[in-house]
C-alpha cells in the first residue's frame, strides 16, 4: 500500500510540474499587455517600461518561470499587478469559499444521489425506478449556471428567502450558510442525477455477482445484502468518478460564483484573465491544479483501500 501511495504522489508531482510549464507557456502566448491594462490609456510608454521593470515582466519567460518556482518554494505566489497585494493573500481569501461551495455541492449530491441510486437498483423497472431515472436524467443535463439564474430569480428576487450575492459575513456561520444554499444547490444538482445513475448501474452489476447469490442462499435479507455487502463494492467506480468530477465541479463553480457575485477562486481567475493579471492567474490555476491533484490522489487511495485488487496491481 505504501509503495502504491508513493507512486501516486510521484505522478502527482509530475502533473504539477507539467501544469506550471503549460501554464506559463499559455499565459505568455496570449496577446495583451498587462502594463497597458494596469496603467490605463493615459500611461506613456516610459511609464509602462517602468511598470514592467518593477514587476519583472521585462524578463524572458523562462526567467520569470524560474523566479516563480524559486519563490513558490518559500510559499510566495507573487504580487498582484493591479493592487500590489500578495497573490497568496488573494488566493487564501478565495480558496475556502470555492472549496466550501464545491464540497457542499458534492456533499448534498452524494447524500441524495446515493440513496436514489440504491432505491432504483433494488427495485429495477418499477415505477419508483422509472421516476428516479426520469428525474436524474433530467437534472444531469441542466447547466449549473442556468439553474443558478433561475434559483436566484425564484428564491432571492421573488420570494426573498435567501441572499442574492456574496459569501456572507466572515465569522457569522449562519449568514455564510444562507449565502451557500443556492449556489451549492446549483452546483450539486447535476451531480445528484449523475451519481444516482452511476450507483444504480454499479449496484445492479454487483447484485448479479456470485457472492451476492451466496448471501441470498444463506437467507440474508435483500436490503442488508445491498447496503452491507454490495454497496461498498458498487461505490468503487463512483469514488473514482467523483475524484475526476471534482475538477469539473470547480470549473462549474466559476460560473455560479459569477452569477452569485461570490468572491471565490473562479471569479478571481475570471478577473485575472480579463485584466491579464498573470501572477494572480498563475497562482489561482496552480492552487486549482493542486486541489484537483489532491482530489484525484485521495480517490486513488480510497479506491485502493476499498478494492484490494488495485493495491495488488500496483
Amino acid at each position, binding site marked *: 500500500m505504501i509503495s502504491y501511495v508513493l507512486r501516486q504522489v510521484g505522478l502527482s508531482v509530475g502533473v504539477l510540474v507539467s501544469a506550471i510549464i503549460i501554464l506559463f507557456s499559455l499565459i505568455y502566448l496570449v*496577446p*495583451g499587455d498587462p502594463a497597458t491594462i494596469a496603467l*490605463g*490609456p493615459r500611461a506613456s510608454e516610459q511609464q509602462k517600461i517602468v511598470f514592467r521593470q518593477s514587476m519583472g515582466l521585462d524578463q524572458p519567460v523562462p526567467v520569470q518561470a524560474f523566479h516563480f518556482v524559486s519563490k513558490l518554494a518559500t510559499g510566495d505566489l507573487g504580487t498582484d499587478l493591479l493592487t500590489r497585494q500578495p497573490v497568496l493573500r488573494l488566493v487564501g481569501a478565495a480558496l475556502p469559499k470555492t472549496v466550501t461551495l464545491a464540497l457542499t455541492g458534492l456533499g448534498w449530491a452524494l447524500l441524495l444521489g446515493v440513496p436514489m441510486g440504491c432505491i432504483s437498483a433494488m427495485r429495477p423497472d418499477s415505477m419508483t425506478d422509472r421516476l428516479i431515472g426520469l428525474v436524474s436524467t433530467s437534472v444531469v443535463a441542466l447547466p449549473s449556471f442556468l439553474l443558478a439564474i433561475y434559483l436566484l430569480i425564484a428564491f432571492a428576487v421573488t420570494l*426573498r428567502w435567501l441572499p442574492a450575492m456574496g459569501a456572507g459575513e466572515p465569522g457569522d456561520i449562519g449568514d455564510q450558510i444562507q449565502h451557500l444554499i443556492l449556489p451549492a444547490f446549483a452546483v450539486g444538482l447535476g451531480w445528484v442525477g449523475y451519481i444516482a445513475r452511476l450507483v444504480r448501474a454499479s449496484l445492479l452489476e454487483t447484485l448479479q455477482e456470485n457472492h451476492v447469490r451466496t448471501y441470498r442462499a444463506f437467507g440474508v435479507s435483500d436490503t442488508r445484502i445491498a447496503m452491507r455487502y454490495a454497496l461498498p463494492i458498487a461505490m468503487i467506480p463512483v469514488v473514482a468518478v467523483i475524484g475526476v468530477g471534482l475538477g469539473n465541479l470547480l470549473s462549474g463553480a466559476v460560473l455560479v460564483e459569477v*452569477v452569485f*457575485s461570490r468572491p471565490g477562486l473562479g471569479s478571481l481567475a475570471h478577473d485575472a484573465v480579463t485584466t491579464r493579471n498573470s501572477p494572480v492567474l498563475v497562482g489561482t490555476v496552480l492552487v486549482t491544479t493542486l486541489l484537483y491533484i489532491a482530489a484525484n490522489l485521495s480517490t486513488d487511495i480510497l479506491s485502493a483501500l476499498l478494492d484490494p485488487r488495485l493495491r495488488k496491481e500496483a
Partner: protein
Amino acid sequence: MKTSRFNRRQILKSMSAATLGVAGASLLGKNSAFAIEGKTLKIWNDGDIRNLDPATRGGWYDETTMFAIFAGLVQFKSGDTWGWQLDAAENIDDKDPLAIPFKLRPGMMWTNGYGEVTSEDVKYSYERFADPKVNAVYASDWDALDTVEITDKYSGVIKLKKPFAPLFTSTLPHASGLIVCKAALEKNGGVITTDPFATSGPYQLSDWKPRERITLTRNPGWNGPKPYFDEIQLYPIADKTAAETAFDAGDLDVTSINISSVGQRKGGDATLTVRPALAYTWMGMNVENPKLSDIRVRRAIQQAINVPEVISATFGDAVEPAYGIIPPPLPGARTKLLYPYNPAAAKALLAEAGVSNLTIKVEFGTDADLLVAGQVMQAQLAEVGITLEVRQMDGATLTAQQQDEKGGTWKDIEMFFITFTTAPDPSWVTEWFKCDQVGVWNFQRTCDASWDKENDAASEEFDETKRAQMYVDLQDKLEETGAYVFLYHGSNAWLSPKGLKGAWTPDGQWALLREMALA
C-alpha cells in the same frame, strides 16, 4: 472509556433540527435585511479598488471611493450640469489663468494622527505628479503646473507655466486635484496603493475585503458638511445584470443597471436616474489597411450606414445617435453629420473607386449591444453590395493586436467598434486622435500635423464659444477622413429606493457618496 454513540433516530432528529434551524434563520434573517437599514448604505461599485493614489489611480472603481475619503480644493457638483464647488478650500480665485490663489478651511484633520491639512500638503500633492519616482499616469493633468507657492499654513497660489482651460473642469475637481498627506506618504515610501495611509475627506476607509466589500465610515476629523450615512458599503460587482438582481433581492440599496434594462424599469417601484454618459462609441477604419486605403471606399461605408436605425434597433429610445466624438453636455458637441446616410451616394462612390463584391470585417470586444449594432450594419452594407463579417472577440486581445507595432499584426485590422470614456473636458476626448497616438490609441491611424496643432490650441483657449467651435472643426476634420462612423454616447442609469436622495456627477459615472441621503 466513555464513547458517545448516536442511533438512527437521534441522527435524524439532529438533522431535522439543523435543517429547520438553517431554514428559520434564513427566513427571519433575510426578511429583516431589506431596504436601507439605519444609516448604512449598500451601493454597487463597478470593480474593486486597485490604486487609491490620485497620481496613479486605476479608474472609476477607485475614484468613487477616493471622492469620499479624500478632499480636494474643489469638488464636482452633483446634478445635471457640470460645475465645481468648494471642498477643502475656503475660497479659491479662478480669474487669473496663470495664478490661482486658494485658502484652506482650517481645522481639517488627517486620519491616523497625521495632524491638520495644510498648504504644504496641497503643494506636495500637486507637485508630485512631476516626480519620476511617482511615475504618475495622470501627469498630463498637471503638465501646466509651474509651482504651488505657500503663503501661510492654510494659503497658497497655484502657478501655471501656461493657461490650461481644463484646470477647473477636469483637473482640480477630479481625482488629480485630491490632496494627499505629505507626512504619511513620506513615511510610507511616497506611493499609495490600496492603503491611503491618511485621508481627510468626510469618510475614511475602515475595512477592505478584497473583491468582496469596501467599507467607509465617518471621518471624525472632517469639519465640512456632515454626510448623512454613518457607513457606506461598496460592493464590487463587474456584471451589472448580477447587480440588478441583487438590488431586486434587497441586497443592494443602489446600483447601476444596463441601458437595456431602462425601458422595463420606467414607472417601477424604484427611482430610475438616467444621465447622458461622457462616453463615445464609434466604428473606426484602419486607413492603412489596403481595403480601406481609398477614401472613396471609407466614405461609401460612412454613407451606407444609417446610424439612427442602428441605434434604434439596438437600444430602442434609451440612447440617442452621436454626431461626433464629443458628448453633448461638453462644449464642442456637434449637432449634425457632414456625410449622413445616403446609400445612393455610397453606391456611386464604390463604382467610382472600381470596387465591387467588397468583403470586410468589423471586430470588437464582448459587448452584446455592439453585436446587435453589427448585425444591423451587416444588413445595411449588404444593400450597397458590401459583405460585412461581424467578429466578436476578447477586448484585450483586440487592443493588443491594434497596438502590435513590433509584430505588425495591426495591419490585418480592418474595421472595429470602440468605446472611450472621458473626463468632463473636450480636450480629453480629442487627445487620442493625434499623430503621436497612432498605434497607441489612434487605431484608425489618421494623422494630420495641422489637426494636432489646432487641438493643442483648443486646450489653451478660454473663450468658451471660440473653444467650442474649435472642437467642432476638429471633429469635422475627423469625419472628412472617412475613417469614423460615430455611433452613440450612451447613458448611465441607476436604481435607488424612493426615499433616497441620490447624488451623481452629471454623467452618472461617479456616485457622490458624501452627498447621498435619505429624504
